[in-house]
């Protein structure tokens, strides 16, 4: 059973009189443990695809199975629970709550967790997630006291905290300089090594080269889908410092 299976997914937007086919019969399968980069021109439908896969949006037609389960007939509440427990999101703009500490930001998904989770346990999981991204020493800092790279790592920790099988990242390095980009990529590779399926949207070819598989989109369709033989490993030097701290 594959984590993500899309069958002729269509999504059309109406802009006044014109119809924009953001997704046009997309077929896509992603296996467990894959690291997929999605590239393509602006407006080619990358974000729309991510939103459908992440259950933030519904397709107009087609079949989407998440871990073998069809999403089509689920109500808003079930979709919310899927976003909460099975999928982690990372956005270009970090999307952290302002004036809220890193720890509280990371604990946010646990606030909406349906199972029983004692407060102490929740906190512990958030601390562990922050340790995993190397920010344990910054947990009481608020977003405006953190650098862009650090903010994105907090966002990754938030995506990790509910132990999802899949992490979806829409241009996670779009707002970062090249050095911090490598930081974040190294982190994604590390998470991928631990078995998490990762789908990442990017504009930059050298970011895509860090994935194992690259999909190129054009006008709402998949134009190319290829495996990378020898992908690049991100420099971990940038991260060396945090290991010891």
């Amino acid at each position, binding site marked *: 059973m594959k984590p993500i299976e899309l069958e002729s997914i269509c999504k059309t937007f109406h802009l006044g009189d014109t119809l924009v086919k953001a997704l046009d019969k997309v077929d896509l399968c992603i296996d467990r443990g894959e690291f997929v980069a999605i590239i393509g021109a602006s407006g080619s439908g990358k974000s729309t695809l991510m939103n459908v896969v992440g259950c933030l949006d519904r397709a107009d037609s087609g079949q989407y199975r998440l871990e073998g389960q069809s999403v089509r007939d689920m109500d808003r509440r079930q979709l919310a629970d899927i*976003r909460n427990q099975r999928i982690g999101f990372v956005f270009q703009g970090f999307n952290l709550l302002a004036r809220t500490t890193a720890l509280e930001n990371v604990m946010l998904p646990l606030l909406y967790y349906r199972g029983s989770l004692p407060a102490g346990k929740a906190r512990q999981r958030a601390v562990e997630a922050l340790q995993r991204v190397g920010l344990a020493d910054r947990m009481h800092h608020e977003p405006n006291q953190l650098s862009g790279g650090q903010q994105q790592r907090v966002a990754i920790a938030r995506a990790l905290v509910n132990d999802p099988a899949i992490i979806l990242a829409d241009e996670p390095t779009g707002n970062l300089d090249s050095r911090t980009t490598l930081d974040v990529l190294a982190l994604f590779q590390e998470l991928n090594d631990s078995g998490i399926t990762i789908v990442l949207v990017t504009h930059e070819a050298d970011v895509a080269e860090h994935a194992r598989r690259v999909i190129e989109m054009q006008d709402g369709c998949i134009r190319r889908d290829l495996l990378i033989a020898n992908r690049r490993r991100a420099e971990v030097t940038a991260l060396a410092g945090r290991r010891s701290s």
Partner: protein
Amino acid sequence: MKWQKLIVVALRSIARNRLRSLLTMLGIIIGVASVIALVALGEGSQADITAEIDSMGTNLIIVVPASADRGGVRGSAGSSTSLSLDDAETIKKEVPTVANVSAEIRLSEQVVAGNSNWNTSVRGVSETFPAIRNYQMVQGAFFSERDVKAKAKVAVLGQTVVDELFGGQNPVGRRIRIRNVPFQVIGVLGEKGQNGMGDDQDDVIMVPAPTALYRLSDGKTVRGILVSAATPGQIAEAKAQVTTVLRKAHRLRDGQENDFSLRDQSEISNMASQVTGTLTLLLSAIAGVSLMVGGIGVMNIMLVSVTERTREIGIRLAIGARSGDILLQFLIEAVILCLCGGLIGIVTGLGTAFTLGQVMGSGVVVNPSVILLSVGFTLAVGVFFGFYPARKAANLNPIEALRYE
């Protein structure tokens, strides 16, 4: 999603915007404070009036000429002569359930003592008057039955009159002149202070009823007869008997209307509480309207807050908050805003009531049910006016919310 967590989230976002939260609450605070203060003062003055009516004497029944009771044109001399001193005597003799009876004549006179003079209320009453109206003496004695029978020219003064005519010195044994009639002062009444209408009850001179009637007045106008029933249980019986006796004395035939009317204390206090009750109701309605306006203020700010925090809502939805969670979060926030406003309002209202009560010298009654009611009402205002903005937040589309700048 647990309630405590939601409450913490709501409190945090209220604390984040302290000034705005306070301003939002202001409408509620003013509304609740005015309800609490008005009701506390209203019930306080009602209690004052009740206490004062009780202090008028126990088991009191007042007989007045019929015309005096009809309002409108206050009884002209001719129409209010239906009561006489004989009526008082008849009641005393023939009604067994009556303990004390006193006629009452009221005159407004210029009174002279040496070089001083003072305009005051002169009352003609019987020797039983202090017993009926709970008056104490501080100096000398009240006049006796013999003084009354003899139409003696003796007077008992209230404290204000003593201050004005004698500079506060003991007047017992001194002389005063009322309408050029010399009177000897034989006693001073204990102080009673102001009554509910603000009249000085110590600005008074008591003289025997016949003396007042025949030496100072026209010999006809008796303003009323004060009767006290033997026990509280006998008030109704005494009223019936007094009516029968007076009808006989006035030779009224069957079917003819009474030319006098009777009131007892419970009727008087009912009338008083009706007036203050209506007033309280009116003021509460005004306060209720201001609470409503406060609620609309809360709704307005909540709507602004939802728009302002669209991105936050988007983030929460994206990481798995259900619409219901968002709805509850904003609803709880509105309710907490209203409740906090309500609590501050209660404290402010009580403070205002006690301060005003001190200044105006009127009583304050704290009624727990009014406090509970206003808490309940603010809760309802919070839910009612918070629901629409909260639902607006809950129904946001996560993608659009995230993209909102």
